[in-house]
């Protein structure tokens, strides 16, 4: 394509964007709405992952230590446990610390502890696990190994929570692929149909371009570029909508507390997801225009048949 033709295509794009503003706005708006739903799902998925991470951070193995261990013996044990592949961090809770923690947990009722010897609570190791090792069988395996350590009296971990977490992670992964795939296809068809309607409204332009000898590439180029612009605009508008929804909900969700407490503040999409949403909009606009236009050109030739 020579420079004159590139200039021609850009002039057509500029003129069409100006003169068919409402058609373009409608297509960009539809793209924005469908991408908003898709982006909303991405936002939900991001926060679910974050929530799962928060829940996972709360999963700890508590290894209660035998009484009377020497400080260097405890230090070696902490060092050995921290070196294990599954372990993210280890916190040694001395008998004294355990007493203070328990007192703090009782709050105003801490008077109940009066008269009890401080050695009644055992020292322990609170072991946090790396995200990849929070699966039920892996946690159990680590707990068994810790039990066999001579300095450890007993081991506890929230088995039920670990199992639930495992299920939740699995569910989110499946939802991500199935629901995300279905939504992507729905988005593709909705945007494709809208683009098709917009092209039908401009069938005269395609027909006249064909009649004056424009090549297929030259006919398609302005439509595809306009489709890209519509798609990108739709993507940007959907992001603006998602940001608005995020600002509205940001303070509301953590206030619900309960099982949502580990979520902390709601998360917005990361840069990769933002770029993905824009690229999907761009792709849908370009490919939707191209496919609809090609189909239309074939249909127009067939429909023009008469004696």
């Amino acid at each position, binding site marked *: 394509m020579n420079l004159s033709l590139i200039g021609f295509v850009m002039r057509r794009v500029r003129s069409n964007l100006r003169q068919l503003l409402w058609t373009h706005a409608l297509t960009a708006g539809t793209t924005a709405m469908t991408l908003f739903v898709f982006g909303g799902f991405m936002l939900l998925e991001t926060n679910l992952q974050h929530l799962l991470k928060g829940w996972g951070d709360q999963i700890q193995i508590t290894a209660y230590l035998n009484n009377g261990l020497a400080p260097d013996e405890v230090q070696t044990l902490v060092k050995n446990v921290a070196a294990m592949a599954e372990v993210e961090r280890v916190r040694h809770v001395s008998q004294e610390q355990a007493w203070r923690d328990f007192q703090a947990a009782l709050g105003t009722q801490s008077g109940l502890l009066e008269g009890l010897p401080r050695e009644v609570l055992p020292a322990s190791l609170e072991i946090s696990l790396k995200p990849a090792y929070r699966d039920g069988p892996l946690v159990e395996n680590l707990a068994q190994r810790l039990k066999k350590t001579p300095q450890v009296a007993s081991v506890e971990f929230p088995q039920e929570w670990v199992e639930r977490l495992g299920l939740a992670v699995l569910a989110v992964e499946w939802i991500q692929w199935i629901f995300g795939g279905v939504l992507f296809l729905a988005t593709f068809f909705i945007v494709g149909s809208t683009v098709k309607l917009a092209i039908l409204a401009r069938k*005269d332009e395609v027909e006249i371009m064909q009649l004056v000898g424009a090549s297929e590439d030259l006919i398609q180029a302005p439509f595809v570029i306009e489709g890209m612009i519509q798609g990108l605009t739709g993507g940007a508008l959907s992001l603006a909508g998602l940001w608005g929804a995020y600002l509205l909900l940001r303070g509301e969700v953590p206030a619900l507390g309960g099982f949502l407490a580990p979520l902390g503040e709601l998360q917005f999409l990361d840069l990769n997801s933002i770029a993905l949403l824009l690229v999907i909009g761009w792709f849908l606009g370009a490919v939707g225009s191209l496919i609809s236009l090609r189909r239309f050109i074939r249909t127009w030739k067939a429909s023009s048949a008469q004696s």
Partner: protein
Amino acid sequence: MIQFFHVSKTYPPNHRALSDITLEIATGEFVFIGGPSGAGKSTLLKLLFRDEEPSEGQILLDGKNITRLKSRGVAQLRRKLGLVFQEFKLLRNLTALENVALAAEVVGLSKRESRTRAYQVLRDVGLKERYDAKPLALSAGEQQRVAIARALINDPLLILADEPTGNLDAEVADGIMRLFIKMRDRGATIVVASHDLNMINRYGTRVLSLQRGALVDDLTRLPPEEQRA
């Protein structure tokens, strides 16, 4: 210049629009294709600008077989033709000048050159004062003259017109026919499909008559000016 060899066209499921047409049109001829509605006039033109492919036979244009062309070949063929239709086929959102220049821009001419040429051909068809008007602001005759200007901008050797005066009153139609004669005098070959017998009788030097898809008559007469003399 134009040669049809046993050309037939059948539309699905079984409508035979043209049957075994063999004809030849020489360079510089002004030919009318006459016949009632449904005779196959438009189909014959569509085969020439390759909107349709023949079902049988071969069509040669300047010795080149245009029977089976891919989309790129069709686009290149149409750049050498000037096409005029009854319904004008102008873009409503473009001015007369822009509509005419469009045909030059798609072949790769710069914006400035396309517009300069468009202005010249609009002047040739008597519309230099109306170059900035959009089609809806023009009369039917003016719109057809814009369409003719668009057909002329790339200096085509062959002009195909399908019922070009169908939407025009007699006086305006005469003006359009005089434009075609002017183009013929400059060396272009003109093929006009029309069912208007008055028009054919007044301007036709060669008349190909179609009936139910068959070529039933090929009549050559003296040019109207010589007939009058």
